[in-house]
């Protein structure tokens, strides 16, 4: 290799093995020991804190796992070196793999087989309680009271009540409502609240707020099935249940007409007369393959799925191939020896990659605006035409690919440049001596060697773009929409379509359905990437 090789843009300091060895050496011995101890102490401190929280919240499965894991970490890093050396390197990676990859995947799978969505968030016991509360209704001529909790002569909890409408005053116990003489009770003019009652001591301040459960359980039975119930510390309302829960049969009965609401196995109590009539809230439960069945059977989801899948594949493939082609072309051009301002060109070309993607995408959305964007308004209009970049289904696809290529090209430029410089010049020179043309050398020698290095990156980039939510969502939002459905616009890829399924259908927030699609996407990407990897392996073997 000649000594005049062009430097790469961010040139590392001259490589000297001595420096690294010295740096490593500085961390062995006492300073290293201290750093290690500090890290371990911090980890243990964190674990003890977490153990307290877990114990406090009665997570009896997670707690032993935490303790065992922490003990394992201590042993690995404190035990004599020759027993645990490989583990020292494996443990941190494994922990992060578990925390950031395996756990989310497990959760996604769990959600995909559940009905987790609006109306199905809490557990069944909580849902039954909430249905009972929701079913309470003020009876005809139901009364509302301002109240003051108090103690009678024997110290028992009672309520002093002031009827809003009639002005009558009462004392209420858990058994009955008894009228009091108006003269015996003082009522605040501003709030209507009883402030004093003869023969009773009002409960105030912190003592009052500490009686939350007692107040909540305080029911004064009145006529029919009604009862006066407290609402906070200063209100009470006469309420009547409209539903009755039959614990033995696990069903609700509507009191007015006797209609039965049964558990439908999908996390709801549903009327036996009208299956659309269900009680809210429902609860979260496992529904097996229900979500996958919905995707397969409901034309609302099935029809766009195939269309979206084809476009997703095209989008990811075109983005990667075009970016690679352009990046490689520019890299070859800039790899030419003796080119002036080489570093400047290279730095400028990396800018789109160095800028935060969010910003670039929002700026591009503005630039491409049909009527007011710079591209149409200031450039194309001079040539007598404009392009509906974001409002036409096909042009929007072009825009999305254009911007994605703009964002991805610098990456492949950098990668190709690096790979090109690692190809021994002897090989291309030998080919030239053998009489190969420039194109022939590139196709037969340079490209195959390059693909060994870049191939896996192409696959990774494909997988990334397959799920490139930001590019789609920030540029077109999945639009424009053709046809009659807004579930999938013409630039929606699978992941943005999933997002819309999750937030903008039915009652909104159908996480179960969205997770089912996420799992399908995972299998698609895994299959494509897996196949491609085996192919690139084969390529490697040829050389």
């Amino acid at each position, binding site marked *: 290799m000649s000594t005049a090789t062009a430097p790469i843009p961010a040139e590392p300091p001259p490589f000297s093995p001595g420096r690294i060895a010295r740096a490593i050496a500085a961390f062995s011995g006492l300073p290293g020991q201290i750093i290690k101890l500090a890290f371990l102490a911090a980890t243990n401190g964190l674990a003890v804190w977490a153990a307290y*929280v877990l114990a406090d919240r009665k997570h009896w499965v997670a707690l032993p796992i935490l303790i065992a894991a922490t003990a394992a970490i201590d042993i690995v890093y404190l035990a004599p070196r020759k027993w645990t050396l490989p583990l020292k390197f494996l443990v941190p990676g494994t922990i992060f793999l578990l925390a950031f990859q395996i756990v989310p995947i497990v959760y996604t799978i769990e959600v995909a087989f559940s009905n987790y969505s609006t*109306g199905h968030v*809490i557990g069944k016991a909580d849902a039954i309680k909430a249905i009972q509360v*929701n*079913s309470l209704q003020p009876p005809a001529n139901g009364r509302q009271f301002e109240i003051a909790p108090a103690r009678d002569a024997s110290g028992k909890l009672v309520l002093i009540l002031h009827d809003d409408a009639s002005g009558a005053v009462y004392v209420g116990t858990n058994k009955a409502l008894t009228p009091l003489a108006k003269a015996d009770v003082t009522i605040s003019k501003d709030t209507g609240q009883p402030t004093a009652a003869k023969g009773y001591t009002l409960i105030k301040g912190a003592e009052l707020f500490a009686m939350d459960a007692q107040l909540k359980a305080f029911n004064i039975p009145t006529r029919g099935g009604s009862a006066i119930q407290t609402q*906070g510390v200063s209100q009470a309302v006469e309420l009547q249940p409209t539903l009755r829960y039959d614990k033995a049969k696990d069903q609700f009965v509507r009191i007015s007409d006797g209609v039965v609401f049964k558990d439908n196995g999908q996390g709801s109590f549903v009327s036996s007369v009208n299956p659309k009539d269900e*009680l*809210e809230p429902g609860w979260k439960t496992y529904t097996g393959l229900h979500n996958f069945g919905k995707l397969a059977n409901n034309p609302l989801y099935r029809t766009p799925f195939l269309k979206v899948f084809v476009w997703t594949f095209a989008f990811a493939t075109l983005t990667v191939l075009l970016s690679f082609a352009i990046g490689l072309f520019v890299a070859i051009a800039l790899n030419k020896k003796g080119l002036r301002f080489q570093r400047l060109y290279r730095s400028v070309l990396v800018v789109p990659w160095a800028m935060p993607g969010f910003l670039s995408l929002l700026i591009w959305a503005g630039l491409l*605006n049909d009527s007011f964007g710079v591209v149409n308004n200031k450039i194309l209009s001079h040539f007598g035409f404009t392009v509906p970049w974001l*409002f036409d289904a096909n042009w929007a696809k072009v825009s999305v690919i254009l911007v994605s290529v703009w964002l991805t090209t610098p990456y492949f430029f950098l990668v190709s440049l690096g790979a090109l410089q690692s190809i021994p010049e002897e090989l291309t020179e030998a080919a030239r001596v053998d009489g190969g043309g420039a194109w022939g050398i590139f196709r037969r020698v340079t490209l195959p060697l390059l693909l060994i290095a870049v191939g896996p990156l192409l696959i990774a980039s494909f997988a990334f773009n397959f799920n490139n939510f930001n590019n789609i969502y920030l540029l077109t939002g999945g639009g424009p929409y053709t046809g009659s459905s807004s579930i999938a616009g013409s630039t929606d890829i699978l992941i943005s379509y999933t997002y819309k399924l999750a937030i903008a259908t039915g009652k909104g927030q159908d996480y179960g359905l969205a997770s089912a699609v996420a799992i399908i996407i995972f299998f698609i990407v895994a299959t494509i990437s897996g196949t491609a990897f085996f192919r690139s392996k084969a390529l490697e073997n040829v050389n």
Partner: protein
Amino acid sequence: MQNSLKRTWALLGVVAAISAIAASSAGASHKAGPTITIWTDSDRAAAVTKVANDWAATSGATIKVVTKQFGDIRDNLGTVAAADAPDVITAAHDWTGQLAANGLVEPIFLSSAVKANFPSYTLNAFSYGTAVKKLYGVPAAVENIGLVVNTKLAKVPTSFSQLETEALAVKKSKHQTFGIAVQQGSGGDAYHMYPFFSGLGGYIFGTNKAGNLDPSDIGVANPTFLKNAHLIDKWNKEGLISSKVDGSAAQNAFLKGQSAFWITGPWNSDTLKKSGLSFKIIQVPAIAKPSVPFLGVQGFMVTKFASVHGVDAAAKDLVTSFMAGAGPQTTLAAANGRPPANIKAKSSDPVLAQFSNASKGGVPMPNIPQMSSVWGDLGQAWVRSTKGAGAMTAAKSFKAAARSIAAKIG
């Protein structure tokens, strides 16, 4: 080997000592007395802290205010662990259906004296129930959009045809592609288009016998609206409105005097004050029906976690008795630049007062969870029919939207 084992034990001892210190500090953070945790957004955090602490001074409670992104308050409430969950949340009224259907919020009752201080629509906005309708929040602030008129460029219109004439005259003289600056963009914006929608006779959900919104009665393409929909095609043809105008394009056009009419809300009142333009804010003049805006109400809810934490009574007292009062309402609404909901707590801001006046007859955004199936399709119906050349006829576009919404609600 002996040596290194000894060292290992010594090191374990050091680690254990440090752990013990960490543990003792972790255990010391408990405190007596009821603690009320409130989730609110950053705009209102200071005001909520102040109001809640004023209340706590009389009740002996401890207040813990947690600041979140506004939308996260709704989304995190379903996933948070009970121990970290809030007892009181700041909420938008259109979350009511979703949160109540999820069983995450508690119904509350207001005394008739307190109720009398709130316009009935604000209470209605926070009420939800498929069988029994219940109140789930205390309103604190209201917001709605209005038509901002640049009085130097155009007269304040008294009829829609006058608005149309004035807007088109300015469009012509300033060589613009649209008359009224109302934001849509390729994603659509059913919220800002609602005055036109309601003026043409459109509605979103009808009400059933019990007075609740009925998701099976979708009025996006009702006969009255379809009869008037040809006006949209006319507006599209003459360029009165254009779906290519997005938020920033609409704002720029008005602030630079290229459009005399801008449809926007109180979140831009500072922008308007700083613009130096002379303007007046009115309701969009009636078309076939009054062109009323959507109303948004923000307020406070008590969560189901309050009973779990044993502070249900305290949380309800804070929300229903204290935060509903005129004084706290003024503080809470001012923190967010909105007029207060309590009619006794008038805002002194003249621009906000003008926006308030534009709300007359307005409709609270539907608060049932099925509304999430509506926004996208209704916005797209406008985008398709007002994109200039090549637009779909309005009748066809809105009929398609109604079909899609019905299919999504299922």
